[in-house]
C-alpha cells in the first residue's frame, strides 16, 4: 500500500473550494494587465476598470478547470521522458532563484557567479533522486536583465534534466522560449515534449501583476507548463487560520488557471504554491514551519480534488547553515510532501527562507529524497506468503545473508544512501577520521564535480544556444559572456 497522509476531510475541502469561488465571483481578482482583463471580459467577466478588478463567473471557472489537463509529462534535453506528473507520483527538484550561495570554505554567504551556477548544475546533473534541475541561483556577474535567461542557458548547456525556471521580466520570456526551441527544434516538438516549468506568482491578496500574469499568457501560447506560486502569508496578507489561508490560496490559484486556460485551453499547469505562516516574532516567512507544510499538503489535496497535478515549495529550511535544523525541517517537509503525493516537490538545497543555496545541503537533501521515495513505495509482500519456507531455511542455515530470497529482494527492499549518511559503527567512524556531516557532504560535492561528464546535447545545439545567449547579452551591452573554464568541453 502506498502510504498517504491527508489533512482535509471531503466536506471541509469542498467548502474551501466553494468559498474560494464565491470570493472570485463576488470580490473579484485584481489584474494589472489590460489585454488579460479584456480577454476575461470577452468571456463574460464583469470588470471594474478603475480598480483593475475582474469578477469571474462560475461558468468561466468551470470552463477553465475542465480545460486544464489532469496530468502531463516532462522530457529531458534529448526528449526522453523523465516525469509523469499525475496521481500520487512524486518527483523532487531543487528550490529556485536563491539570492546567495553558502560558501563551504568560509561558511558565509556571497553573491553567486557564473562559476557557482555551473558547479551547481554539474552537481545536480548527478543526483539521482532529483528528477529535474531548477534555476536555483541568480548569477550576479551578468547584466541584471539577462540574469534569468542566462541561468536557463547554463542549465541547458551542462545538464540534461528538464528545468524548473521562471522569468523576472516580460521581455526575458522571449529568449527563454528561444533557448528551448533551440533544444527541441520546433514549437510543435516543444509543445509535445515540455522541457521546462515556469513559476508564475500571483500577489497576495488576490492580485496579478502585469509581469507575472503576462508570463502565464506567454507560456500558455507555447504550451509551456506553468506552476502557480500563490503565497498567502498566514496572519499578515492572508487569514491567520490555516483554512482561511487555504481559501485564499485556492482563489488565487484558480484565477491563474483561468488566465492560462482561457488563453490556450489544455496548456499544462501545476497546482502549486509557496505559502507560509508569518512569524510575528521575527517578521519572517518560515518555510520550515510545520503549519507552512500543513498548508502545502492541504492545498495539494484541493488540487488533486480539482483533478490537477500539484507542486509545492516544501522540504527546505530556514537555517543559515547546514545544521540539524536544516536537516530536520527539510526531511519533515520531504516526508510530508511525499506522503501527501505532491507531484513536484521543490526545495532541496535551500536555506534561509529560500534565499540561499548550499551545494552540500543539496547532496544531503538528495539523500532525504532517496529515503522518502523509498518510503512511499510502501510495504508490499514479496515471496513472503507462505512464510514457512523462508523460516525453515533460516532455522536450518542460521542466517539468510546468502539466501536466494535475500539476494532477490535486498536492493528493492533496502535503500542504500550515499556517503553523507553515516552508518558506520563508532570505531570505524573514528578510524576513518571522525568526519562531520558537513565535511562528508563537501567531499561528495568535490567528488561529483571531479566526476562530471559533459552533457551529451549535440555540439550544434550547444553552439546555437551559445549564439542566442551571446546575442541577448549584446542587446544589454555585454560584449561577451563571463569566461567559463570548461566552456570548450561543453561544446
Amino acid at each position, binding site marked *: 500500500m502506498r502510504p498517504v497522509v491527508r489533512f482535509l476531510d471531503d466536506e471541509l475541502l469542498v467548502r474551501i473550494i466553494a468559498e474560494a469561488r464565491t470570493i472570485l465571483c463576488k470580490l473579484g481578482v485584481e489584474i494589472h494587465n489590460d489585454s488579460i482583463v479584456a480577454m476575461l471580459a470577452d468571456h463574460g467577466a464583469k470588470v471594474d476598470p478603475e480598480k483593475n478588478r475582474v469578477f469571474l463567473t462560475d461558468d468561466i471557472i468551470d470552463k477553465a478547470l475542465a480545460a486544464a489537463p489532469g496530468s502531463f509529462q516532462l522530457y529531458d534535453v534529448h526528449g526522453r521522458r523523465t516525469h509523469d506528473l499525475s496521481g500520487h507520483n512524486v518527483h523532487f527538484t531543487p528550490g529556485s532563484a536563491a*539570492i546567495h550561495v553558502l560558501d563551504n570554505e568560509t561558511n558565509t554567504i556571497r553573491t553567486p557567479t557564473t562559476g557557482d551556477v555551473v558547479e551547481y548544475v554539474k552537481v545536480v546533473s548527478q543526483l539521482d533522486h532529483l528528477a529535474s534541475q531548477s534555476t536555483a541561483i*541568480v548569477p550576479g556577474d551578468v547584466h541584471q536583465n539577462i540574469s534569468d535567461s542566462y541561468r536557463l542557458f547554463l542549465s541547458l548547456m551542462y545538464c540534461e534534466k528538464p528545468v524548473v525556471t521562471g522569468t523576472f521580466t516580460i521581455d526575458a520570456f522571449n529568449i527563454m522560449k528561444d533557448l528551448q526551441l533551440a533544444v527541441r527544434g520546433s514549437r510543435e516538438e516543444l509543445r509535445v515534449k515540455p522541457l521546462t516549468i515556469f513559476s508564475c506568482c500571483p500577489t497576495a491578496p488576490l492580485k496579478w*501583476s502585469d509581469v507575472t500574469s503576462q508570463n502565464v499568457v506567454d507560456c500558455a501560447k507555447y504550451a509551456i507548463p506553468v506552476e502557480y506560486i500563490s503565497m498567502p502569508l498566514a496572519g499578515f496578507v492572508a487569514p491567520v487560520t490555516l483554512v482561511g489561508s487555504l481559501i485564499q490560496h485556492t482563489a488565487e490559484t484558480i484565477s491563474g488557471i483561468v488566465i492560462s486556460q482561457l488563453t490556450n485551453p489544455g496548456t499544462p499547469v501545476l497546482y502549486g504554491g509557496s505559502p507560509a505562516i508569518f512569524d510575528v516574532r521575527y*517578521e519572517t516567512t518560515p518555510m520550515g514551519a510545520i503549519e507552512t507544510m500543513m498548508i502545502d499538503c492541504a492545498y495539494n489535496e484541493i488540487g488533486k480534488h480539482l483533478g490537477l497535478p500539484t507542486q509545492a515549495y516544501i522540504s527546505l529550511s530556514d537555517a543559515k547553515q547546514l545544521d540539524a535544523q536544516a536537516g530536520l525541517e527539510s526531511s519533515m517537509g520531504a516526508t510530508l510532501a511525499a506522503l501527501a503525493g505532491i507531484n513536484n516537490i521543490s526545495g532541496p538545497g535551500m536555506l534561509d527562507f529560500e534565499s540561499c543555496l548550499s551545494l552540500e545541503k543539496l547532496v544531503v537533501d538528495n539523500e532525504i529524497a532517496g529515503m522518502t521515495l523509498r518510503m512511499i513505495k510502501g510495504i508490499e509482500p514479496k515471496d513472503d506468503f507462505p512464510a514457512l519456507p523462508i523460516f525453515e531455511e533460516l532455522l536450518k542455515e542460521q542466517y539468510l545473508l546468502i539466501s536466494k530470497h535475500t539476494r532477490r529482494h535486498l536492493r528493492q527492499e533496502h535503500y542504500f544512501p550515499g556517503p553523507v549518511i553515516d552508518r558506520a559503527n563508532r570505531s570505524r567512524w573514528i578510524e576513518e577520521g571522525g568526519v562531520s556531516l558537513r565535511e562528508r557532504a563537501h567531499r561528495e560535492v568535490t567528488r561529483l564535480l571531479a566526476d562530471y561528464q559533459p552533457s551529451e546535447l549535440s555540439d550544434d545545439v550547444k553552439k546555437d544556444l551559445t549564439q542566442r545567449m551571446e546575442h541577448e547579452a549584446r542587446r544589454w551591452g555585454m560584449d561577451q559572456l563571463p569566461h567559463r573554464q570548461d566552456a570548450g568541453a561543453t561544446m
Partner: protein
Amino acid sequence: MSILTEIVENLIVGDDEKVSALTQKAIDDGVLPKQILDDGLIAGMNTIGQQFKNHEIFLPDVLMAARAMYAGMDKLRPLLLKEGIPSPGKVVLGTVRGDLHDIGKNLVGIMLKGAGFEVIDLGNDVSPEKFIQTAREHDAAVIGMSALLTTTMSAMKEVTYQLKEEGLAGRIKVIVGGAPVSAEFAVEIGADAHGYDAANAVERVKSLISEN
C-alpha cells in the same frame, strides 16, 4: 497612578480609545504637550519595543499599541505644532524600480508610523527620480528604500549617487533594506544605514535623525 503612567499602560495594551481620552484629559489638566509625548506616548512605545524584542509580545500587539499611539498623537499634534516642537521627522518610503515586493516595506512603514514618524509611502516600482523629488518636495529627513530582488537592488545606488550630485547627501539620509540588501551593500552604495527588520528600521531611523 499619574495620568502619564495611565497613558503608558493603556498604550501597551493597545486601547486606542482610552489613550485618546487620557491624552485629552492630560491636556485639559495642563500637562505640557511635550511631556505627554515623551513620558506618555513615546515611553509606552519604548516599552513595547523592548517587550517585542524579548518575545514577550508579538507583532500584532505592537501594531495595536501603535494605533493607540496615533490616537493620542491626533490630540497632541496641533498643540505640538503650535508650540513649534518639531515633528519626529518625515520618511519617504518605497520599493525600488522594477520590484513589486512590498510586504516588508509596508511593515517598515507601519512601524515607523507607530514610532511617530510621518511616512510618505510611494508604493512599489518607484523610480530613483521619484524618491528624490518627493523627499525634496516634503522636506523629508530620510529616504527609505526596499528591494527584494538581486536584479533591482542596483537602483538604490542611483538614488545615493543622485543625492550626492545634487549636494543633498547627508541632508537627506538614506536607509535601505530587503532580503538581498546587506549592511556591506549599504556602505558600498553610500547609504547612511541598513535595517534588517521593521523594528530595527525604527531604531536606525531614530539615530539617523538624531545625527541631523
